[in-house]
């Protein structure tokens, strides 16, 4: 239990959890690879990634259910790397909820408090309060088997929160809920987190869920962090091709870096078109001139007439292959002259003349909405692509 005194921190921000070079190897397979991570106090932080990316293993190491093969886990300034889970100020909401089926709701929630030898009257008050927080007052005497999935989830949350841990771990707690309930719980969970002020570490493979709730998030792949920051940062300026396609939809166009002209860098696409990218958004770890230029589908304007957008916009020409009406908007699949397919979302704001299949169109988008990533050598597997 070495005290860690030399944590550099921004003024007013306290680091709650710090992972230092944390590695986990299962039978020769590396699940988590030299992970470094700081989670601040009171933050809603998400680990996002496809299955097998190491996010759950990371969570289990912080919870004390797995021992790291290397590195350190520091919680509230104390090294807890090899501490048993019952000696950590951390509580977990399990994916299966893991409510005790032989105990009623009251005893489930009181379980942690009783271990800490709280007075009976205190336990009763705390359980009542937390049931109010999760909006299930009067549920004390219910049996776990009598609860719906959503109610079970709230009780699992209450059972963890009632202990007022320094850190709450949530392991894909919404995966068993239906879509509508999930949306409702996302908003509610965020509100509860705001109210109790406890640091939440949320593990999910659902990019929309992570973006909706998180203050900050990391995108993981193959046990490594591929992107880190606020949801907006990570979405608008993805660090890698993987992040660009896992977090939302992206159009990625292969090209070669040409020349930097101050704040902008010119990139020649494979088809010969020139695209300008803000120099600041070029990946720092760019090896050669090969890169991929990206733009989000909703950033693109589509037009059947010739537009001269000038210097501030990038422009591509193509032909509409598929046009789909989705209610909130139109989704187009446009094929450029060089054969690259580009997805475009246009909001349904009452434009009378939506381009139809087969029409020639011009695509424009502001230069500052263009990003560039290092091409990933290996192809992304289906599960690694975004679900939406």
């Amino acid at each position, binding site marked *: 239990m070495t005290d860690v005194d030399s944590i550099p921190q921004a003024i007013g921000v306290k680091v709650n959890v710090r992972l230092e070079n944390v590695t986990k190897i299962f039978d020769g397979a590396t699940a988590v690879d030299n992970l470094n991570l700081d989670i601040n106090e009171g933050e809603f932080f998400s680990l996002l990634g496809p299955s097998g990316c190491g996010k759950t293993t990371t969570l289990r190491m912080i919870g004390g259910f797995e021992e790291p093969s290397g590195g350190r886990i520091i919680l509230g300034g104390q090294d807890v790397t090899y501490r048993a889970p019952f000696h950590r100020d951390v509580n977990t909401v399990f*994916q299966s909820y893991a409510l005790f089926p032989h105990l009623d709701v009251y005893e489930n929630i009181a379980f942690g408090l009783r271990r800490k030898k709280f007075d009976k009257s205190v336990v009763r008050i705390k359980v009542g309060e937390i049931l109010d927080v999760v909006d299930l007052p009067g549920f004390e005497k219910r049996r776990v088997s009598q609860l719906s999935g959503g109610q079970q989830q709230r009780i699992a949350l209450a059972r963890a929160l009632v202990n007022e841990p320094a850190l709450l771990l949530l392991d894909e707690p919404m995966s068993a809920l239906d879509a509508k309930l999930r949306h409702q719980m996302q908003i509610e969970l965020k509100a509860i987190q705001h109210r109790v002020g406890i640091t939440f570490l949320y593990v999910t493979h659902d990019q929309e869920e992570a973006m909706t709730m998180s203050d900050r998030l990391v995108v993981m792949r193959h046990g490594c962090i591929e992107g880190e920051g606020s949801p907006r940062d990570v979405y608008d300026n993805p660090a890698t091709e993987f992040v660009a396609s896992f977090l939302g939809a992206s159009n990625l166009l292969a090209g070669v870096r040409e020349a930097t002209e101050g704040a902008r860098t010119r990139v020649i696409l494979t088809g010969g078109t020139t695209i300008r990218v803000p120099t600041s958004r070029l990946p720092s770890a760019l090896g050669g001139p090969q890169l991929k230029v990206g733009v989000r589908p909703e950033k693109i304007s589509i037009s059947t007439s010739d537009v001269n957008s000038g210097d501030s916009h990038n422009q591509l020409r193509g032909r509409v292959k598929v046009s789909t009406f989705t209610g909130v908007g139109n989704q187009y699949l446009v094929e450029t002259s060089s054969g690259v397919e580009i997805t475009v979302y246009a909001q349904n704001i009452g434009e009378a003349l939506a381009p139809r299949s087969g029409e020639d169109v011009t695509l424009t988008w502001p230069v500052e909405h263009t990003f560039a990533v290092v091409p990933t050598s290996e192809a992304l597997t289906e599960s690694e692509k975004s679900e939406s």
Partner: protein
Amino acid sequence: MSTDVVSEAVIAAVRPSRRPRHLGRFALPTYSWLVIAYLVFPIAVMIVYSFNRVTSGLQLVSFAWNGFTFQWYRQWSNIPGLTSAFWLSIRLALVSTVIATVLGTMLAIALVRYRGKKFRGRTGFEQILFLNIAAPEIVMGASLLGLFVTFNVARGFVTLVLAHVMFSIAYVTVTVRARLSGFDVALEEAAYDLGANPWATFRLVTLPLILPGVLAGALMAFALSIDDFVTSNFVSGTNVPFPVWVYGASRVGTPPQVFVFGTVIFTIGIACALSSLVVAKKKA
């Protein structure tokens, strides 16, 4: 009224013929009851003849019905050897059940939870368990006697307990393991997570959840022990347990008290089985 008649006629016409289902409805229950009768008949005979009057001079069971009496229940302890044999069997069954249940449950947990590097030779261990169940009792009894004689261990209560624990453990383990295989390990992790140490976790979460399996295993161990003859015959000393005593006595003639004890043991057994069923239902 008339519309009712019409609709009934329509229903009757539409309804498929019921005859084949009739047949199935009677065949299966009839068969089941026949099997049950077959199983229960010997027990019924024992219970009935525990109430039979004895007219001959020697107070031994005869299978002619001489009239109803509670005499043998009143004089249940009149035969000194039988009574002490009965109490020995009860003591033996209780002690060996407790030991076998504790050891067997621990073994089941080890077999389910630890695999691979953590439990080398686990597969071999499972084979031994089944060997223990499948091996003829006569072989085990004879070899145990050989062992005790070789190491000059005096035959008596201790050797009986050793033998009974040995043949009960495997049954307890198999029963508890079946209950454990559906156990969500996350429940134990949740207990750790909430600050319970391993012992508290076992006491508050694991044991209550596997209790129906443990009770069923204990019941089985008790049943195996209380009526064991083959092994007990080899390893008992001068004090013999109930089944061994009955066997010895039956060569001269069975006193009716044997049926009284049999009936009582059976009744207690039924009561245990029923209460275990109730517990299992409540826990499920």
